[in-house]
């Protein structure tokens, strides 16, 4: 069984520990040998996305040091995985283990569908669910075909969730519009960010979603913040929380 390094993004560690825990349980239940390197902190994305490479680079170097030794690295986040896969290259190019790390760091859903090759998801989730296809997972990891692309449709998240008994995945009028989180964008461009978020929630609600599900807690944190302020009935869930009780094979 492969040796899996569990990468829990900093804000998941601190604010959504439950999501980390269910991710760990899902992986362990598949018989994987999962380790959580205690010295991990953050992938560096907040600094890198603000243009502050000097502040981000040491974190990339630490990440390679901590995770380079694992056969696979898995995280319950599309955005942080994209950071490793698509944005570390100019700092770590040519460093030992980097090519391996980059090629073997996975977001949870794609790890389940592409690496573990889960084909059967047995369990139930009798609920109307709207998928929030967060942008970096969608367009930088290609967890699904984006609506702009004219290629054969696929969606790895839907592929997993749709097998649950009783689940109804609703169709949104804009299947993959950005929620407006965008890291520092959420505060730098507060007005547009919140309007984007409310528009997204409205789209989910109009489609009948009771749960807004996604693979990036950061986007869901932003939507949840808007939902709770407006005392709306919708709730957000990480895909791992929905899959927690299911049998994957």
């Amino acid at each position, binding site marked *: 069984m492969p040796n899996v390094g569990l990468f829990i993004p900093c804000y998941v560690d601190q604010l959504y520990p439950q999501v980390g825990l269910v991710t760990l349980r899902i992986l362990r239940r598949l018989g994987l040998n999962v380790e959580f390197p205690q010295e991990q902190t953050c992938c560096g994305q907040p600094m890198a996305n603000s243009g*502050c490479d000097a502040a981000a680079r040491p974190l990339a170097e630490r990440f390679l040091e901590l995770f380079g030794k694992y056969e696979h690295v898995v995280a319950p986040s599309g955005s942080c995985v994209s950071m490793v896969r698509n944005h570390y290259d100019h700092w770590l190019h040519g460093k030992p283990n980097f090519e391996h790390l980059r090629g073997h760091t996975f977001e949870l859903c794609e790890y389940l569908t592409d690496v573990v090759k889960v084909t059967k998801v047995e369990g139930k989730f009798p609920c109307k669910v709207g998928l929030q296809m967060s942008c970096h997972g969608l367009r930088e990891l290609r967890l699904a075909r984006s609506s702009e692309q004219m290629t054969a449709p696929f969606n790895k998240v839907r592929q997993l969730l749709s097998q649950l008994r009783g689940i109804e995945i609703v169709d949104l009028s804009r299947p993959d519009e950005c929620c407006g989180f965008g890291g520092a964008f959420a505060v730098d461009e507060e007005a547009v960010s919140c309007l984007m978020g409310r528009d997204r929630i409205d789209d989910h609600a109009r489609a009948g979603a009771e749960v807004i599900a996604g693979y990036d807690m950061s986007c869901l944190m932003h939507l949840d913040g808007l939902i709770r302020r407006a005392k709306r009935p919708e709730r957000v869930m990480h895909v791992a929380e929905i899959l927690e009780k299911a049998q994957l094979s």
Partner: protein
Amino acid sequence: MTGHAEKAAAFAADESRTHWHDESLWFVRVKRDRQAASIPEWEALREAASAIKTHTLSRLADYLEEFERNATANGIHVHWARDAAEHNAIVHQILASHNATRLVKSKSMLTEECHLNPYLEARGVEVTDTDLGERIVQLRKEPPSHIVLPAIHLKKEDIGELFHIELGTEKGASDPKYLTEAARGHLRSKFMEAQAGLTGVNFAVAETGGVVVCTNEGNADMGTSLPPLHIACMGMEKLIPRAEDLAVFLRLLARSGTGQPVTTYTSHFNGPLPGGEMHVVIVDYGRSRILGQQTFRSSLGCIRCGACMNTCPVYRRSGGYSYGYIVPGPIGSILAPQRDPRMHASLPFASSLCGSCTDVCPVKIDLHQQLLAFRKELVDSKVVPLQKRLAMAVMGFVLSRPLLYRMSGSLLRALVPGLPRGLVYGTWNRWGIQRELPTMPKESFRDLLRKESS
């Protein structure tokens, strides 16, 4: 100086109008999707367009000279302008040598970029923009708010009011057909009186020495076939090598931009009218500097279709003017800080980096990656305020020290729930203006893991 965020907030404050703006542009995006989906080889076309542009830019000097030779052989006068000032002076000199004081223009973002209209008007030339949307914003003394849909920020009622004042239409009229007929009548007289016509250029073909102009209103054709003098102004990146390359770009341009299979008029100008004169002004104005930058070079491949604006969730909710540059949206947010990094420093940050622009771009410019790369440029050149750079340095410092990181996290989670709401949601907290903070859990994942393992 206010940046994009402040202007965007002012635009978005009128939520119903913002939603109308968003829906209008999303409608164009949906039309684009439908048209793109009708072409089975769509992605291959984008790939081909990108490859042709990359190739052309790698030999731009050669193709420009080839174009000049062939255009000259066709009887076209070719002029070279280093910057906006030279461009404007050349155009004025051509007009002056023909004693032309009445000019009709079809759409040209380059002349907007060079501020040609005020330059000519100050020298006694009457300039009439003849694209309907352009004419509307010209009458309002505004710049265009979108490069393909210049008056997209206006409702038909706004235009009815404008035309009532400017063209004497009935008060309160808002029927698009009635208003368009009025504009048509008004423009017809301008065409008849014009002594020269100026157009932009969508594509300049090196092997033929001709230029191609795409419009929906036929105004470029009218403006170049009535008066004997035609001036075409182009950025030097508009070159394509061969006429057959048009087969790639013309299939992409209108589908991407407006969701039409092709523009109503695709006009090929390969030489002057019999007895007339044709001039092409080729402008650098910062383009050769961009050509020298590997990270940003591909932005010169832009064919100005506007698809990145239509798809951008920020542009749709902040309006063209929030960008404060003649080209707004994702592509403008890369081009503007090339022109003046300090004045346009906020633009690369006016994006959630969602990447929709990159996926929609018909020539595959990696727009959101370039926005990100520009942030780094602005930090490295210290254009980004010290406060922000310091905050990131501190954050990086904490996050690269596991113990410090864990202690800060624990402190935050222990402290925040006990604080009075008024303090937590004070004016310092921009997250909390419209959003709740996440509920702080007692334990971190690390804490839970320890329990899970024991």
